[in-house]
């Protein structure tokens, strides 16, 4: 299981991770196509009450999103990430509501961090210029 740690003291809010995530999930792995394909980033850097905050799937032990799904479209993969069955998902958004970390965004189906399963390592951490995001294999 790949865990990503976030050090808010190192984060400068440049959002390079968001761009890298969208690019990593585009067809040609490029930013230009990510924009064209309307890819949604699976990580978001926000500022709440003056503090920097990250929104990204934390690979919970007992995820609240899975039982919230009325069509049982969410499942946990062997590497711990949440998979969405696009054929059964109705895009109702209950999982989005259930997640206490704001990690799920509908676009139109739930998008969740897959830890860049197809790449060698998560691109958000790789792209982070200040190393506020770091990969921790568990």
């Amino acid at each position, binding site marked *: 299981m790949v865990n990503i740690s976030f050090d808010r003291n*190192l*984060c*400068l*809010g*440049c*959002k390079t991770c968001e761009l890298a995530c969208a690019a990593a999930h585009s067809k040609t792995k490029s930013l230009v196509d990510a924009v064209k394909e309307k890819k949604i980033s699976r990580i978001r*850097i*926000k*500022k709440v*009450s*003056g503090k*920097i905050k990250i929104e990204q799937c934390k690979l919970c032990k007992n995820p609240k999103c899975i039982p919230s799904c009325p069509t049982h479209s969410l499942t946990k993969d062997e590497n711990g990430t949440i998979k969405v069955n696009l054929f059964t998902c109705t895009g109702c958004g209950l999982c989005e509501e259930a997640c206490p970390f704001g990690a799920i965004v509908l676009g139109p189906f739930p998008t969740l961090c897959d830890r860049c399963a197809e790449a060698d390592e998560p691109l958000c951490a790789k792209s982070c*210029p*200040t*190393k*506020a995001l770091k990969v921790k294999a568990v």
Partner: protein
Amino acid sequence: MPDKISCSGCEPTTNFLLKKAKDNGVETVWDRAVAMQPQCGFGEMGVCCTNCSMGPCRIVKISPDGPKKGICGATEDTMAARNLARAVAAGSAAHSDHGRDIAEALHYAAEQKKPIKDEKKLKAIAEEWGIQAEGCKIEEVASKVAEKALDEFGKPFGHLLFVERAPQKRKEKWENMGVVPRAIDRDIVEVLHSTHIGCDADYRNIMRSAVRAALSDGWGGSMIGTELSDVLFGTPEPHEVEANLGVLKKDCVNIVVHGHEPTLSEALVVAVNEPELMEMAKQQGAQGINLVGMCCTGNEVAMRHGIPMAGNFFQQELAVVTGAVEAMVVDVQCIMPSLSQVARCYHTKLITTSSKAKIPGAVHMEFDEKKSLECAKKIVIEAIMNFKNRRGDVFIPEEKSRGTIGYSVEAIIRALDGITNTFAHPSGTVKPLIDAIKSGVLRGAAAIVGCNNHRVPHDKSHVELAKELIKNDVLVVTTGCGAHACIKAGLMSEDAVKLCGKGLATCCELLKVPPVLHMGSCVDISRILQLLSIMSKYMNVDISDLPVAAAAPEWMSEKALSIGTYAVASGVYVVLGVAPQITGSENLTKYLTSDMEDIYGGKFDIEPDPVQAARKILNHIETKRKQLDI
């Protein structure tokens, strides 16, 4: 930084309108500022460089890993200095291009034999510049002065003519540092050249170029803008004016003129008083035409004609939100592109008039200086014909304040003349002011200038700083959006004397002036330079010896950076309420906040809290007083 939409500075007007905006589904600057959080730390620190396509490069300061140099090898010092210098150059360009437009307007006015409002000033400038005026027709003098002013932008040799206005010691300092401004365009171009990839890498030398470009603004473009505007449209004299969004009138065709250059606004002032247009407004069901000003163009027409001051930078969208504005007529600088979207939610027509500033969604009606009145009339007709389209949802706040404005250097000296002894003292000097400062009745003077910025509460910093200073017997002069903030807060009214310390209150009562003097628009900060210069020459000291300071508590624009830089290089202590994007370079930060004092006698300081900023200014003034032994 705002977490929610609020404006504690100018309640309740703004907050009412913000609520209306929200109800109408209109997004404002405050909403966008919240949506923009967090803002990129690299940009904030000035260590992101996009000057070539090997980049963007960023210097990672915050963790041990990550690049410490750009791909070309530029250090954080080089990057931050280059970014700052380019911003200063852009600011200088904006002010100076404004100055050029005024010089051109004077040229056309001479050509068309239009009236010159201040012939005395024109002749004085002609004499200063070595132009033979005696025996010449006034148009000939105007034409020669205009031509000489236009030469200042690109002359191949020598230095700017207005540099001679600076005290001798100041000029020597500039000569020693090699920063005497030569030709305005050239000094700006040199910054762009030296900050190109692979050119200047020494942050101190980059700042030297930036200082020269900035001085080209203050003692060049801006000063030309101010002086020739006075010549062409009249030198401001004290008079009363109303301010805040309450100046809009429900039953009238409301035209808001917004931007910077007085050429457009002056023509509009004439056009709205044309009987045929007033009649046309009545035929359309309106009581009349109500012209009001916004931002610096608002200052220009308020200073010269008493046109009401509708509001400052952060109020431009709110003016449209009232639903009572038939046309917002804009030219250049500080016009939010969002205006066209806001205008679309109401009946308001956004009319752009400059080929330098078009906005998608706006009606473009180009203003031609050669046919100024004709253009202005067309614009006014467009507004009148839009009156019938007004929708029901109109809300004009009741709040408005009054104040006395119009303090050009000439007007200040005239006020001072009022208390000189006819037999013992010559008139037309700053002697009474210097005497008051020397005796300690007045501790000193401070300029509060600059914009609005979401990083500090709207208008609050301007007003609190001004109040704190006048309470401590420091005379305040102000321009730009700071002036709007001060008049709205009542600091230019007679009552403001009650907020002053004893010494300043006595001075104000004797001189019959408010404790906060409105000196004009942002190019008119050249008036403040001029006043400082006269004061230091009178005392036979340098500007940096005077017990004076400046503050830009809510600054945001590149022009403000240029102003700050020329003020510091002219020897003034400048307190910024918002940190410039340089903090990624400790060396550059130290250069601006400390080293510059050793070189130029002025320096930058950063202090977001207005009360603390006042404390710093007061300390600085007392230090200078001690050094002068007064």
